[in-house]
């Protein structure tokens, strides 16, 4: 029994030392081994690691891509117009030793790196125009068609992307400068939002409103323009159609009359005297009856010459 207890005792002590000297570094971590607060070595890979029991401590570091949400800052651009910039930073701890010495932990890192990035953004924003910060040229081709916007890099105006790269380069230079040397690398800085300050917003709305009003007015005027154009063209065409038809009608009537005259003349010229005679009789028939016409007839006229005698001398000689 005593032997067993000794064995157990040894096992317990061995277990305690194993527990004190073995530790697991996770996939997402690296670990610094410190002896009395001084860094001995860095375990950068995941797995089971050893340290001296009791006298050595471990400090774990996240080796993933870390995130800093930079606070929203109002900053002036080149033309002293203010923009509210909301940005974020992604960084990685490259050298845990330096990180531990300079920043100690992620919370301190957030404010220190955040401040550096903000001042970089401030510097870059101050050097650029508002439209450059907001807009830019797409760097991609979509479906074979290059998307082009008003702002281009060709004549030296940087895009938003270009600006964030300037910020990134500047911030990386700052965090790795001999003064700082944080042991980190900033992988990315992105401007999430560049918004107008509240005070400017109202005047933007006013401008938008008037722009739209002009547009609406223009549309309506264009409509009226086209309306009047179409209608007057129609009226013009109608007038021409009417006039043409009248012209044709008159010509037709004229040729009709002419034809009629020609036909008459051709017929009548055969014996104008007979025509005069018959036509006069026709005229008598039409004009004389029906009215209170009084006709005075000579008793020796052709009609009445037989009234007194059946043989007047001058009747058939004609």
């Amino acid at each position, binding site marked *: 029994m005593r032997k067993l207890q000794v064995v157990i005792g040894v096992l317990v002590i061995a277990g305690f030392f194993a527990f004190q000297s073995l530790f697991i570094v996770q996939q997402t971590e690296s670990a610094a081994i410190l002896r009395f607060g001084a860094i001995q070595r860095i375990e950068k890979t995941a797995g089971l690691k050893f340290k001296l029991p009791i006298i050595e401590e471990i400090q774990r570091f996240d080796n993933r891509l870390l995130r800093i949400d930079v606070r929203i800052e109002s900053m002036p651009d080149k033309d002293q117009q203010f923009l509210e910039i909301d940005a974020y930073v992604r960084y990685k701890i490259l050298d845990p030793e330096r990180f531990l010495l300079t920043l100690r932990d992620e919370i301190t890192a957030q404010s220190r790196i955040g401040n550096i990035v903000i001042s970089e953004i401030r510097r870059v924003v101050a050097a650029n125009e508002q439209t450059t910060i907001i807009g830019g040229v797409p760097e991609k081709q979509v479906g074979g068609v290059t998307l082009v916007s008003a702002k281009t890099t060709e004549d030296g105006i940087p895009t938003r*992307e270009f600006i964030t790269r300037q910020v990134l380069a500047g911030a990386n230079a700052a965090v790795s400068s001999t003064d700082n040397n944080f042991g980190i690398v900033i992988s990315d800085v992105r401007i999430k939002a560049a918004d107008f300050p509240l005070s400017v917003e109202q005047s933007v709305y006013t401008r938008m409103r008037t722009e739209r*009003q002009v547009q609406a007015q223009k549309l309506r005027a264009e409509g009226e323009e086209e309306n009047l154009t179409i209608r007057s063209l129609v009226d013009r065409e109608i007038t021409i159609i009417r006039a043409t038809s009248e012209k044709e009608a008159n010509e037709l009537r004229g040729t009709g009359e002419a034809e009629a005259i020609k*036909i008459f003349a051709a017929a009548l010229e055969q014996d104008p005297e007979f025509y005069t005679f018959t036509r006069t009789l026709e005229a008598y028939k039409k004009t004389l009856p029906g009215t209170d016409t009084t006709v005075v007839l000579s008793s020796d006229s052709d009609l009445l010459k037989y009234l007194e005698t059946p043989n007047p001398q001058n009747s058939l000689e004609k």
Partner: protein
Amino acid sequence: MKNKILSLFQQRPQQEIDLDEIFAKIKNTFSGGLNGLGGFNPRIGKFLIPLILIIFLVIWTATGLYRVEPSELAAEKLLGSFTNNLRGPGLHWFWPSPIGQVQKAVVTETKRLEVGFRTGPGGALQDVGEEALMITGDLNLIDIQLIVQYRIGDLGAYLYNVDDPGSPDRGIGEGFPDGLTLLDATEASLRQVVGQRSVDDVLTANKEAAQVATLIMLQDILDSYETGIEILEVRLQNVRPPDEVREDFDDVVRARVDKESVINSALAYQQDQLPKARGNAEKVTNAAQAYKEERILKATGEANYFNSLLEEYTKSKSVTRQRLYLEAMEEILPGVKKYVLDPENQGSLLQFLPLNESSSTGS
């Protein structure tokens, strides 16, 4: 038994606490075994310790069994280090805690991120104004609500590469990059893309192009972070001018409609009036044509009539002439007042006329 193992596995405790617990367990087992049984029968006690150890080992090994659902993948970590092994659906075994660790995630499911609004419980939509409001390339403000559809493309990358505070409102825990990392990148992409376009482009004409551009930029950012997230779709769900100026934007739309309708009314006028005018023109020319035909026919008729008369007349001029004259007189004289005078008395014609009629017949 199997179920029990599985349930044990599913409640895998944290590693370091686990070490303590196991240690305590071993100690308890030992001391319990010694005090409880050892005193009565040292022979049993001799075998008891290895037996307990073996049973413990068997149970511990059995807890390494785990099941992956058809929609899931599982990543295995050995002593904290990712083995690069991803297990598909089925029953698998891997070292139990504290040596091994298995992390499972649903990978076939299409997940969804909403920007500018949130779908609340029961499908109620809630606007998130500060997310939705952004500046366009022509310095207008616009409200955009956007949906990102994505899935986990690379589980290893998804689990181990990117730190993220998580997004509890969408049920995404700490350390998963589809939390704020995805939201950050989406906002940055969308606002850059919108900043490169005019307000009208985004509102109407080139919505599709903006979606594609946002998707490409977003995927690029996520790939550069090695998030393992695969973007399936970016959809501009609701693009509209802010409330403050909406009335004026709507008025532009109305003006466009007004323009169309006034042009249409002009076109209708055209369609109505031109055929009528052409019809009227036809009417006028037809009437003239009719007149012409009529005149010619009449003239021809009268000429023919005269010709006929003339033909007969020339045969017996005097008689016909006399006959025509007399016939005409027959026709005329019944309707008129007649006075017959002897030519010898012509000089005193006036005395026969009634004085009161002289004026009316004088002409």
